[in-house]
């Protein structure tokens, strides 16, 4: 009885020697990945397309069972989507027949029913307001721009008050400027909620800017090449992007990724 409680305080996620081969194929997506994630930390997986980082995230979300190894959350092995986890994908995946606020309330509605969703109207409005979508509560997704749709997806993720956020290239489809602004918002959301955040990205600056720890991954089968601890002051601002230390960390991650693919500098 002591071990789950003991790990509770120090480890949110424990990924223990996880490998995954897609059933019916011999495609190895992941190989011997092990790491611990502390509560309240912000970590990123970065690597080329097809390096298994999304597979790893799906395993952490309980959407996929790895063929080998174990993913544990708060000391308990994950089978099926765990409570207290919010997820975001590269596409906003809003339901076009629902208004923004109806989309935001979807997780509550599916969990506790329509009446519970109605009780959360004010909470939903408050979240929508914080991400700057006030006035768009009754707009349909077809009326929103790409950035606005992702903001709505953020609201939908936050409505259940998760303490773990799993983000699969959430801003990968947005333009550079919008992405930088969304990254700032994501940082303030994560810190104000003391949430543990796992970000999958293929943008090195984004990974460095947001993370406490960056895991550089190899091409298929995905392995962790290097762990880079980013020691930049928080909160990070647009000015952080211009700091020499920021450039240094970006360089470190890039070198790690290149070395892993046999490219020497």
């Amino acid at each position, binding site marked *: 009885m002591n071990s789950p409680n003991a790990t509770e305080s120090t480890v949110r996620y424990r990924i223990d020697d996880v490998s995954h081969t897609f059933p019916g194929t011999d495609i190895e997506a992941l190989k011997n990945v092990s790491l611990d994630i502390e509560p309240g930390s912000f970590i990123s997986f970065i690597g080329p397309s097809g390096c298994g980082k999304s597979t790893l995230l*799906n395993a952490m*979300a*309980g*959407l996929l069972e790895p063929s080998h190894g174990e993913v544990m959350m708060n000391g308990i092995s994950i089978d*099926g*989507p765990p409570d207290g*986890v919010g*997820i975001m*994908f590269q*596409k906003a*995946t809003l*339901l*076009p*027949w629902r*208004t923004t606020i109806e989309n935001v309330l*979807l*997780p509550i*509605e*599916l*969990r506790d029913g329509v009446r519970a969703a109605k009780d959360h109207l004010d909470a939903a409005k408050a979240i929508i307001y914080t991400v700057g979508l006030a006035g*768009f509560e*009754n*707009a*349909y*997704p*077809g*009326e*929103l*721009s790409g950035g606005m749709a992702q903001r709505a997806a953020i609201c939908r993720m936050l409505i259940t008050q998760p303490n773990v956020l799993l983000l699969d290239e959430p801003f990968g489809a947005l333009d550079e400027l919008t992405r930088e602004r969304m990254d700032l918002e994501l940082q303030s959301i994560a810190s104000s909620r003391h949430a543990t955040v796992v970000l999958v990205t293929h943008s090195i600056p984004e990974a460095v800017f947001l993370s406490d720890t960056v895991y550089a991954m190899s091409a298929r089968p995905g392995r962790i090449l290097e762990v880079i601890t980013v020691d930049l002051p928080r909160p990070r601002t647009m000015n952080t992007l211009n700091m020499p230390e920021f450039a240094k960390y970006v360089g470190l991650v890039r070198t790690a990724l290149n070395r892993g693919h046999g490219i020497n500098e």
Partner: protein
Amino acid sequence: MSETSVSSKISSAASPMAKVVMGISRWFNSLPQAIAVAVVILTVLTGWEAIVRFGDVPIIILPSPLNVGEELLIVISQLAPGGFLAGELWITIQEVIIGFGIAVVAGFIIGLWVGQTKFGQKAIMPLFVALEATPKIAFAPVFIAWFGFGITSKYVLAAFMSIFPVIIGTAAGLVATSEDELKLFKSMKAKAWDVFWKLKMRRALPFIFAGLKIAIVAALTGAIAAEFIGGGIGFGEQIRLASTRLALDRVFALILVLSLLGIVLFSLVAWVQRRVTFWDTPNHRIAGKGKKKNLLVVGR
């Protein structure tokens, strides 16, 4: 002389003529749609009238639009409440509505089964798609033989003609949900019923309505065909009777009324579709239940 100057010479030589042609074409293109349609119809009718009048075509071969117009007035008077054609039209409408209704209910259930089971997708769906491509109307005598000359065979043929688009629309629509959406619902631990009702069913609706729009017209075709062959009742019987006594002006007038019925039925389905799947139309911000019109400008 360089090539460019040659081509410019040609275009400038052709320019007075080309300008006139382009001017006329631009004038036609700029017409409002209603007027453009009217222009085409008037042109066709005038041509038709001219051919009949100056070509000495007998009325039993091809009545002129004016003949048809006169007959149409008679038909309309017979369509007035209590008129004998009104009763026949009502019979045909009933056949279409009941046949279509059967096709919608049965087609949806079969579509669910075909679309949601592996066996249905593998073994049944290809057969239905193949059947949809056959001239189903050829089965009409079979249904008359099975269900007799009464109204039952009309319902059945109308249903048979219209069921396949419903089945195919339902089955195809239910697998149109994206992987991302399924993953989203799974991550939110959605119950199977919610995945079906709040996701798959909504995604299927545009496909189902595409099927329904084909089906309603097919049901009308089926009902009329059954009346032709099975005889005795309905608007189709009236057309058959008129043609046997070579009253082609009446045949045309009746066909006009029937066409109008088809258009009305189709428009009804299209109207329901716009209400139900407003989010599927490109300009749904305007159709979107009239909510938040002020957002029109902000959107993109």
